[in-house]
């Protein structure tokens, strides 16, 4: 494995390369500080076949999270995790996949968007998912991120109208994060019709990679989503296992299973 601390591959180029090779992207999520050994977990997930890793910076009022990630965030905060500590630990990681940080507006604005993005860049982070910054509020953040080489991943929801999908895909970068449902993060046993419908609409609107998140609970839902998109993001399913006390290796087993399921998908090359 090559050692790359600074200058990990840009997120979007990395995901486009995968798409060109017919590989569905798998992006597991880890809450920074959820366990003392969380950075070891990140490394294990990368080794298990993740194409990028999403790191959640814990926040006291995680409005968009279901119970699992709420609990993970609270546990991390109770154990003294902060944005500065999380990014210091991230900077020490030795990975060959890009990292994308997910967090809430106040942690970004509290430092100022410019300072925040500069810190992400110096920690070797490629992208940022600002979950409660919709397009209308994103202009200053997008500019700050661009000037520090950070790709800003914006979210589309089933309720997002077509012209807005285009604008979000256009102004965001890295990938388009498509939420499979109207709702909070968390595992679901099956994905509704709106997931496929949204993925289809987003892919029609943009050439950027489209990854689906929310509700991906294992190989079955991952494969279901990836049939319509370029990859999946899996958060609560990973964190539930961590909260239940599974080891990094055991959690990595889930990522391996999902990897296998995704690799089995044959993408139709033409309509």
């Amino acid at each position: 494995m090559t050692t790359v601390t600074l200058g990990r591959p840009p997120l979007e180029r990395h995901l486009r390369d995968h798409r060109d090779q017919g590989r569905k992207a798998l992006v597991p999520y880890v809450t920074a500080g959820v366990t003392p050994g969380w950075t070891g977990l990140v490394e294990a997930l990368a080794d298990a076949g993740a194409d990028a890793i999403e790191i959640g910076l814990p926040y006291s009022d995680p409005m968009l999270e279901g119970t699992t990630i709420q609990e993970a965030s609270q546990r991390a905060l109770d154990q003294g995790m902060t944005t500065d500590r999380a990014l210091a630990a991230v900077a020490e990681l030795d990975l060959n996949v890009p990292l994308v940080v997910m967090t809430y507006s106040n942690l970004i604005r509290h430092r100022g968007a410019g300072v925040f993005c500069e810190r992400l860049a110096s920690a070797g982070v490629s992208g940022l998912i600002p979950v409660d910054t919709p397009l209308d509020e994103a202009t200053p953040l997008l500019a700050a991120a661009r000037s520090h080489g950070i790709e800003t991943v914006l979210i589309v929801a089933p309720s997002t109208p077509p012209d807005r999908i285009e604008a979000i895909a256009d102004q965001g970068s890295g990938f388009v994060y498509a939420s499979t449902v109207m709702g909070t993060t968390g595992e679901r046993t099956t994905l509704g019709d709106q997931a496929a419908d949204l993925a289809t609409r987003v892919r029609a609107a943009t050439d950027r990679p489209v990854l689906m998140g929310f509700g991906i609970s294992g190989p079955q839902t991952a494969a279901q989503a990836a049939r319509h998109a370029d990859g999946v993001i899996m958060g609560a399913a990973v964190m539930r296992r961590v909260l239940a006390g599974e080891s990094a290796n055991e959690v990595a087993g889930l990522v391996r299973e999902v990897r296998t399921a995704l690799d089995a998908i044959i993408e139709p090359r033409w309509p």
Partner: protein
Amino acid sequence: MTDSQPTSARLRDAVGPYFGRFGGRFVPEALVAALDELDAAFGAAVVDPAFIAELDHLHRTYSGRPSILTEAPRFAKHAGGARILLKREDLNHTGSHKINNVLGQALLTRRMGKTRVIAETGAGQHGVATATAAALMDLECVIYMGEEDTRRQALNVARMRLLGAEVVPVTAGSRTLKDAINEAMRDWVTNVDTTHYLLGTVAGPHPFPTMVREFHRIIGEEAREQVLELTGRLPDVVTACVGGGSNAIGIFHAFLDDPEVELLGLEAGGDGVETGRHASSITGGVAGVLHGNRTFILQNEDGQTIESHSISAGLDYPGVGPEHAWLAESGRARYEPVTDTQAMEAFQLLCRTEGIIPAIESSHALAGALREGKRLGEGGIVLVNLSGRGDKDVDTAARWFGLVSAPDLVASEAERVVATDELKEEL
């Protein structure tokens, strides 16, 4: 306006999404469409004569508007001889100003074709008001309330359930009002097709701060006329308590363009701002983003929300409405803390001198009036928004002043535990 001043210069005309650098709409993308829908529905409703007439009818025949203005001469003797005038929002149906906003939003819910309302509540006043409007308009109603608060306000939990609402105790985070708001947002993002989030204060994402203000500005409009009629002039100072700030913006709004009228918001000082145990978001907070808007919030050096503290559950919130943040920064209004002790002194004084038991929230505004009255002296006029009645606070006050014997306290504590356990079982 008959003068040449451009209307855009009037502070009263300010609307969201931004008030200065405060406000905005920091929400997940999934809520943007619903906020747009709400904004459009609200914009259409407030210029629709039928909507205006229906709301006005409810004000007059259901809430009991206009609320009266009561002069408090015996209370004023303790305020340096200035005249103290009380705007009696405590006499509204459900016992506080909250009904103004709730009726407006419930009508709007029906107009949008939605059948379910959700709301957060701290002390239970907004929850009770929402449950009331939902019963009146045949809407399904779910109230989110921090588990800690369901215990502190068991009587209001019962009240909401009598009105047919479902009360959901929130066990996440600090188990108080801020967590109830988070949980209501999560419900809303999941059920937005059928559900309106009937937010109870002038905070949250646009259009809530503007919309909730518009439904409460009747307080100041009535009061301004009433004070003019009674005294022949405008008051020197208007005082109101500020948690999220709905009653304060409601009474301030009509006076924003009267530069001779000072506006004073009283924040919950808890044990004292210097102790760190308070809810004074403007006095002791830092600009940030909480619950969808940029405003002053109580937060630590990492940007995590700090729990607020106040004897008054209705002011126990670590943020404040963005329009207040703007009025504070521009200097148009002043905001000062009132400690628990100062508020309870004013509470007792109003009980004893005027025969009115005020809400502990409103007692912060009364404490501010005592301060201002002393400053103004004879001839001064202070208008106070008496935003709620104190029936819900009798238990807290009885403990504070030691008015019930220890065995009684033990007994009522036992009842409370039983009530909470029963509630949990049923859920």
